[in-house]
C-alpha cells in the first residue's frame, strides 16, 4: 500500500467514524428546526450554519454520510450477489443458458445506466416515507447494477470451468457441490470482491445524481444527493460557500475509494 493509499484509508476511516459518532459530534438532530436561526452562518453552535428551514447543516451532513456509507456497500453487496448468481450459473452451465444470459446482459447494458436508473426510480412511488425511500433507492441500485459485474463473473467462471485442474477434478468424479464450494468459489472470490468494491463509488454517485434530481432519499432524512439540491441556488452558494461542504466530502470520499481500488486491482486472480 502506497503512502497516498494509506492517507486515503485514514480519511475514509475518519469520515466513517465521524458519521457514526454523529449523535455525539453534532448535538442537534438532523430534522430539528431552529426557527430563530434560519440560514444562519457557521458558528460554534452550528459548524456549517443552518439551511433555509433552520436545520443544522453539520448534523445533516454527518447523518447523510452515515446513510450513504452504510447503504452503498449494502447495495453493492446485493448487486454482486445477483451478478454472481446469474453470471456464475451461466458460466458454469454454459450452452443455451449462457447464451440467453449473455443476451440479457447485452440488453441491460445497451441502456445507459443513468437512463435506466432514473426511469425505473421515477416509475416507483415518490410520495413514500423517508425510510421507505432510502430502501427503494438502494434496493434499486442493487437490483439494477448487476449486469456489468455479471458479465465479468460469467467470463471468469467460464475460464475456471474450462481450466485443466477443474477438468481433471471432474474426470476424478468430484461432486458438483464440492466442485463449486472447494474449487470454483474460492477462485472466484477475488473477482467478486473486486466487483463489490468497484460498485460502491458508482452507487454513491448514482444516489447523488438521483438526489439532485429529487428522486433520491425523501426529506427530512438527509443524504448527500438531497443536500446537493441546495446548490441549485447559485446566489445562495456564492453568499454561503460552506454549502459546498457535502460536495467536497462526496468528492473526497469517492476519490479515496478510487485510490484504494487500485490496491484491489492488484490482487492476483
Amino acid at each position: 500500500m502506497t503512502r497516498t493509499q494509506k492517507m486515503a484509508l485514514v480519511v475514509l476511516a475518519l469520515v466513517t467514524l465521524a458519521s457514526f459518532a454523529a449523535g455525539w459530534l453534532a448535538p442537534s438532530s438532523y430534522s430539528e428546526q431552529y426557527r430563530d436561526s434560519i440560514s444562519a452562518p457557521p458558528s460554534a453552535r452550528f459548524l456549517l450554519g443552518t439551511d433555509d428551514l433552520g436545520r443544522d447543516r453539520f448534523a445533516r451532513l454527518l447523518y447523510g454520510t452515515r446513510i450513504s456509507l452504510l447503504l452503498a456497500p449494502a447495495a453493492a453487496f446485493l448487486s454482486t450477489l445477483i451478478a454472481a448468481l446469474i453470471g456464475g450459473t451461466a458460466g458454469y452451465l454454459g450452452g443455451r443458458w449462457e447464451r440467453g444470459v449473455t443476451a440479457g446482459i447485452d440488453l441491460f447494458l445497451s441502456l445507459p445506466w443513468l437512463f435506466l436508473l432514473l426511469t425505473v426510480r421515477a416509475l416507483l412511488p415518490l410520495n413514500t416515507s423517508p425510510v421507505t425511500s432510502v430502501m427503494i433507492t438502494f434496493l434499486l441500485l442493487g437490483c439494477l447494477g448487476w449486469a456489468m459485474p455479471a458479465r465479468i463473473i460469467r467470463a471468469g467462471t467460464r475460464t475456471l470451468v474450462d481450466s485443466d485442474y477443474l477438468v481433471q477434478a471432474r474426470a476424478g468424479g468430484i461432486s458438483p457441490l464440492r466442485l463449486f464450494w472447494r474449487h470454483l468459489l474460492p477462485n472466484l472470490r477475488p473477482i467478486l470482491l473486486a466487483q463489490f468494491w468497484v460498485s460502491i463509488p458508482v452507487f454513491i454517485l448514482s444516489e447523488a445524481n438521483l438526489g439532485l434530481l429529487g428522486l433520491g432519499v425523501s426529506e427530512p432524512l438527509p443524504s448527500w444527493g438531497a443536500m446537493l439540491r441546495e446548490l441549485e441556488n447559485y446566489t445562495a452558494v456564492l453568499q454561503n460557500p460552506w454549502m459546498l461542504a457535502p460536495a467536497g466530502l462526496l468528492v473526497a470520499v469517492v476519490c479515496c475509494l478510487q485510490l484504494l481500488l487500485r490496491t484491489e486491482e492488484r490482487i492476483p486472480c
Partner: protein
Amino acid sequence: MPLSMLLRQARRILLTALVGGLLGATLVRLGPGFGVDEREVDARLNAESQQAIRAEHARDNNIALFYVRYLSGVIHGDLGFSRSLNRPVSELLKERLPLTLGSLAYGVLGGMSIGLVFAMASVWWQAPGSDLLPAVLSGIALALPAALIALVFLWMGVGGRWAIALVVFPHVYRYAKNLLVAAYQAPHVLAAEAKGLSPARVLFAHVFTPAAPQLAALAGISVSLAFGASIPIEVLCDTPGVGQLAWKAALDRDLPLLVNITVLVTLMTLVVNACADLALARWRPVS
C-alpha cells in the same frame, strides 16, 4: 466485410432494441399509478367524456396488445401520441433529437480528444509525476456526479455539451493510458527504440496506431455514458433535448413516449457498439 456478418449484426440490434422497448413498456405498465389521469376528477367533464378517457387508458392495459399496435404503427411511420405533452411522439423526437445528437457529438468527441491527448502526453513524458495533472483531474471528474457537473457548468454559463465532455474524459483517459502503456512495453516498440527511431515516430507509428482500433471501440461506451449523463445535464440546464424528454416521460408515466425513447436509445447504443466491433474486426491484424 462479409454481408452475412452485417446482416447478423443488424438482426441482433433490431431484436435487442425491440425487446428493450417491450421491457420498457412492461415496466411502465407495472409501475404504480399507471393509468391514473387527473382529468377523471375534472368536474367540468361529463360522464361520457370521463368514460371515453377511461376507455382510452383501457386500450393500453394489455401490454402485449399495446406493443403490437405500437409496432404496426411504427411500420406505418406513426410513433404514437404523447398524452403528457399532447403532441405526436414523432414531432417531439424530430424537434429534440438534433439538439441531443449535437450535444452528444460535441461531448463524446471533446471528451475523447481531451482523454486521448492527456493519455498520450502521459506516455510521452515518462518522467515520474508527469501524469499528476491528468490523474488528479480525471480522479476529481470521476468523483463528481453528472448532475453536479451540470450545476457547475450552469453556474459558469457554459453549455451542457462540455459537461458531457467532462463526464466522458476521465473514462477515456484511464482506459487509453493503460492501453498505451501496455502497447509501449511490446517487444517491437523496444526494437524500434533500439534502432534509434524518434520518440514521436515510436509513439504515433508503433504505439498509437496498433492501439487505435481498441481506442475506437471506446466510442461505443462513451456514447452510452454520454446519453446517461445528458439526462441530468439537460434537466438541470433546462435544455429541450431527448434527455429532458426521457425525464418528463418517466415522471408522467407517458407510455408511448417512454417506449420510443427506450427503443431509440437502445438502437443508438447498439449501432455505435456494432460499428466499433466491426472496426475492431476490420483493423485487427491477421495472425
